[in-house]
């Protein structure tokens, strides 16, 4: 089959590789009909995530048709059309049974590596490094899906791929970002980052009852989409305004009730340069500019919800502001399995139509172009969908 493989930093290539096969009894093989490039794939593309091997198949947002099932799969059969969540979860361990699917204790064969880095391991993830299990991803013609009884969600034929594909990751991720804010009627929510996840966080905050949603980014076309498509009531370009002042101005000096960090590792020039330099010297592994701003901006007693991806260590973390002002910080890789069904219902009911983020559709063979364009934000690129 054809599959998009990570070869090295800023180098992906669609290659011929062997077809996947059933390995475990609860496996299914899915023939991919649509797959997308995620913002977090750019971290891999940029070589920021350790434990990648040349030849790793990328991709954790995908859907398609079941073509083979293992002997212990009861919930799916050949021909079912499914969306597959990015975390691989067993459904029965203590984490899964408390709804923390992305923290599954049984699905990462390389758990020992992430235990060394993070103290404890999380679930295996498709196409996202060996530390996350070494599972082949879904930017391919076929993919092997472990624990097929638990993850894949059957979707109605009336809905197009484009309407349901993002149930695999970014729609639930944005939604969980908003849900973690514990939004009360009348709340003001600020969202850092207007990439696809940020767009869905904005839309979700409104669905959950926020009265005003302030979108923050630096790229005009992304801010435009935030206002026109996701429904943000205010937009702020951090390259044009001083964010803390602008937020105080908008909220009468109090600050947003909750702040969502859905930002890629970017920020105003000086801060960006500082963190970029420290990262180059390996003194920190992530660039937490949005997170620092979100904490300082949040109103006393408010919530900071972190859905932007961090891998390791950060510095200049404003702990004093967090502690003294009674803030709550909530975070996590999305527990996709928990949100897929209710969000599918919202799509069916027409409450949200997630396909507005798609700006480009390319054949799988042009994956490398898609990555390059997405990285460089060329041609107002927001979301690339690949068709195998």
């Amino acid at each position: 089959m054809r599959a998009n493989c990570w070869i090295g930093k800023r180098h992906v290539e669609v290659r011929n590789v062997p077809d996947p096969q059933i390995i475990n009894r609860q496996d299914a093989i899915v023939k991919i009909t649509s797959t997308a490039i995620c913002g977090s794939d750019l971290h891999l593309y940029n070589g920021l995530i350790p434990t990648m091997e040349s030849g790793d198949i990328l991709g954790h947002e995908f859907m398609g048709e079941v073509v083979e099932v293992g002997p212990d799969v009861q919930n799916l059969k050949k021909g079912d059309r499914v969306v597959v969540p990015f975390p691989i979860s067993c459904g029965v361990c203590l984490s899964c049974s408390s709804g923390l699917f992305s923290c599954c204790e049984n699905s990462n064969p390389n758990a020992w590596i992430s235990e060394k880095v993070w103290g404890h391991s999380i679930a295996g993830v498709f196409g996202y490094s060996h530390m996350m299990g070494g599972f082949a991803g879904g930017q391919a013609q076929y993919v092997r899906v472990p624990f097929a009884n638990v993850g894949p969600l059957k979707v109605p034929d009336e809905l197009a791929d484009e309407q349901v594909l993002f149930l695999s990751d970014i729609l639930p991720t944005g939604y969980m970002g908003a849900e973690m804010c514990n939004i009360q009627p009348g709340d003001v929510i600020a969202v850092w980052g207007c990439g696809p996840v940020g767009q869905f966080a904005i839309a979700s905050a409104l669905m959950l009852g926020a009265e005003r949603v302030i979108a923050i980014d630096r790229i005009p076309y992304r801010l435009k989409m935030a206002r026109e498509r996701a429904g943000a009531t205010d937009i702020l370009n951090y390259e044009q305004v001083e964010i803390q002042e602008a937020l105080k101005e908008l909220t009468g000096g109090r600050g947003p009730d909750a702040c969502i960090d859905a930002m890629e590792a970017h920020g105003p020039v000086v801060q960006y340069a500082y963190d970029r330099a420290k990262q180059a010297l390996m003194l920190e592994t992530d660039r937490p500019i949005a997170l620092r701003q979100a904490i300082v901006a949040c109103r006393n007693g408010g919530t900071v919800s972190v859905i932007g991806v961090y891998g390791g260590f950060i510095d200049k973390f404003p702990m004093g502001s967090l502690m003294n002002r009674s803030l709550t910080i909530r975070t996590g890789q999305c527990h996709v399995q928990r949100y897929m069904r209710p969000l599918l219902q919202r799509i069916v009911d027409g409450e949200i139509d997630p396909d507005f983020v798609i700006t480009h559709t390319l054949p799988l063979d042009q994956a490398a172009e898609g990555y390059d364009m997405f990285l460089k934000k060329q041609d107002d690129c927001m979301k690339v969908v690949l068709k195998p």
Partner: protein
Amino acid sequence: MNTNARFPDAENDAEDNKTEINYRRIAKGLGWFSLALGAAEVAAPGILAHLVGVRNGSVNRWLLRSPMYGMREIATGVGILNHPRPSEWLWARVAGDLVDLGTLALSLRSDENDRRRLTAAILAVAGITVLDYITAQNLAPTADVVTGSSEAARFTKGVRAMKSVSVNATAQQAYSFWRDFEHLPGFMRHLESVTKIDDDRSRWRVNAFGKTFEWEAQITEDEPNRRISWCSTEDADIENSGTVVFEPAPGGRGTIVHVDMFYAPPAGSAGASLAKVLGRDAGQMLADDLRAFRQAIEVGEVIQSDASIHRTMHPAQPSQESRRTA
């Protein structure tokens, strides 16, 4: 469960303070020495080059700062000071000392260097090397003889591994799953086979480090749903014994399985090096096997990825040989 028995280090600490030479204190001193020397090599390589008698050139200054010398000293210093029992870091110091000695000895050949200062430096480093060696030996984990437990008392030198895992099952389920030894190799990677001889005796074959080891194990204690203890019999390739305890987790959240094992490698120098490898890896091997135990009991099998199915590094993509009996 006797808590003291699970935390032998607390007892050993008390004993250490009674011995005349406190190697932990010496190790601390060596750690600070490493840090100071490393800092000097990085901050003032020119002065240091002069002191030991090598030419103060840009290459030598760069070398003194490099991971081979200055940075190495700092790393070992931090390692020693950070670990309660830093024997591995002390062995790293010994290795580093040998590099230094080699470098200094080679420098004697060049006419550009000051041979008198070099000889003095070699003598000084040799002295430190001896001290590092003695300290490392005395802090080595193999010296961590565990006594007091009836099974362990037979071993004069051995390696102890203790790990626990929480499983989402009752103590009775976990006990029965473990007690049926013959099916353990089905998911524990390091076990090749277990054959039952009678109710209390079984034959174990283990594959580790590319070799097969065999022994007969005798159950010495069997309290249903609570604990199983075993001990290898006389002809074992690796003498070993252990206990597994099944403790109901607080709040009814499954069962905590505690394993406490001792290995005593065969006598002789091959055995000693095996002990070293075991000492380092026994804990990790046990942790891997316990994780597999949890997966087997919770989901019925051990989940593999396209990469993990291979024993060596393999990219995350399917391979022709990945098909197994499903």
